[in-house]
């Protein structure tokens, strides 16, 4: 595809801008900013990736992954800013998720240890881990606020913080994992996953594209489980003090 043909796709940006203006939706500015950001960010990433792939240096790969973890952490922590030390808890979670999944993929030589494989796969897994952490934190904080009396009840009867928060923790872990599991049930039937479509459009063998997609789908399950469980188990102790009391201002309302 040439840049001239690519510029023709801006028609797809003009349509929502015109509709927004006609119907007074007030989304013209946001649509324009989003378009500009996506052009700049993706082009920049494209050139950075080209440089990293050509350099074939492990340090650049590590730098790229660190940058992904940093950006994902800064984004996800907003949802849990009331939880003490949430930034490092999320960062540790992403690092463990990355280490476990890439460790398995590279350790068993499922994919070659090159930037071309490590970076896109890490991006998908860390991105998914970020979404999962946000989903988990949203649900977890809402659950706690809605059931403070239940938590206090269990504490008042001599239960430990872990026992008091168990139901809310379990419910938030389940709720955040369900979309990943559900979307896998209809995968390929309703929509073709982005990576697979990209490979097919790029001229790859559809069966090989499916194989890579399956690899990602399976890895996403581990990512989903690890992300919500790790964030959950790292977060809940900070909601209580050493006298096993639920802290009053532990969560923002």
């Amino acid at each position, binding site marked *: 595809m040439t840049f001239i043909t690519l510029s023709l796709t801006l028609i797809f940006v003009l349509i929502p801008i015109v509709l927004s203006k006609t119907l007074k939706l007030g989304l013209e500015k946001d649509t324009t900013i989003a378009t500009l950001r996506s052009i700049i960010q993706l082009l920049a990433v494209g050139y950075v990736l080209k440089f990293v792939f050509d350099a074939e240096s492990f340090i650049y790969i590590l730098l790229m992954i660190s940058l992904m973890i940093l950006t994902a952490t800064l984004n996800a922590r907003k949802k849990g800013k009331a939880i003490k030390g949430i930034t490092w808890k999320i960062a540790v979670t992403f690092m463990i998720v990355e280490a476990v999944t890439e460790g398995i993929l590279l350790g068993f030589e499922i994919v070659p240890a090159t930037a071309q494989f490590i970076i896109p796969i890490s991006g998908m897994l860390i991105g998914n881990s970020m979404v999962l952490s946000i989903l988990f934190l949203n649900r977890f904080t809402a659950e706690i606020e809605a059931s403070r009396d*239940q938590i206090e009840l269990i504490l008042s009867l001599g239960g430990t913080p872990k026992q008091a928060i168990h139901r809310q923790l379990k419910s938030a872990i389940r709720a955040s994992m369900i979309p990943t599991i559900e979307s896998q049930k209809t995968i390929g039937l309703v929509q073709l996953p982005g990576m697979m479509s990209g490979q097919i459009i790029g001229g790859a063998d559809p069966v090989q594209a499916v194989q890579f997609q399956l690899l990602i789908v399976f890895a996403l399950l581990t990512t989903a489980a690890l992300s919500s469980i790790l964030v959950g188990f790292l977060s809940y102790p900070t909601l209580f003090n050493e006298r*096993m009391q639920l802290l009053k201002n532990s969560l923002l309302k």
Partner: protein
Amino acid sequence: MNQTNTAAIRFDKVCYEVDQMSILYNISGSIYEEKITTLIGPSGAGKSTLLKMCNGLISPTSGEILVDEESIDLIEPTKLRKDIGIVLQNAPIIRGTVFENIALPFTLQQKKLTEKEAILFLEAAGLDHTFLYRRAEDLSGGQKQKVSIARSIVNKPKILLLDEITSALDPTSSHEIEQLISKINRESKVTIIWITHNIEQAKRVGDYTWIMMDGQLIESGESGLLDTTRNEQVKQFANRVYKK
């Protein structure tokens, strides 16, 4: 006040602040063993906060609470909460059957409560065995409160804290619960602190009463003081409550 009584709980200059706002100020006094002490006062007086402190759900900002003359801070929280039971306002229940609710204190300690034991606690709280496997959410307010009381005595507490347990109930259920608590106090020698808005109830069930306003203990003594008080604030509060 009878000086031969032993203090089950003693408050020594207890203060509690949240965001630099004083909720409790300089509370000192004793709750006597095996007696029923009622806590009365308008909403926002700090009664529930004081009660939660006795169960260790909140700690004072300054001052000290002593249980059997031992500082509450030195007692392991789970042990403290087993020894000092609390029936919270609105009787929160867990999803599940009445049996699961009553067995909860044992479940938390990885112990098993037998069906027979559960029925005994249920009967002690004024409900018969037919309630055992009913869904707790489906019960009426009064029945939930009784389940809540049954659950709070499973740990066989030495002290029981009651937070407005009859305020949402009809007069009949309210009267039943009064009798039930008096029985638990009499037969099991359980010390009771009971928050109530109802002055008549305080006079009926209480041996002693504490009157709280704006986070302070205004007056305390035998329950008769509610009729004999010379404190203007207390008189005004009593008149307001009676007029309602």
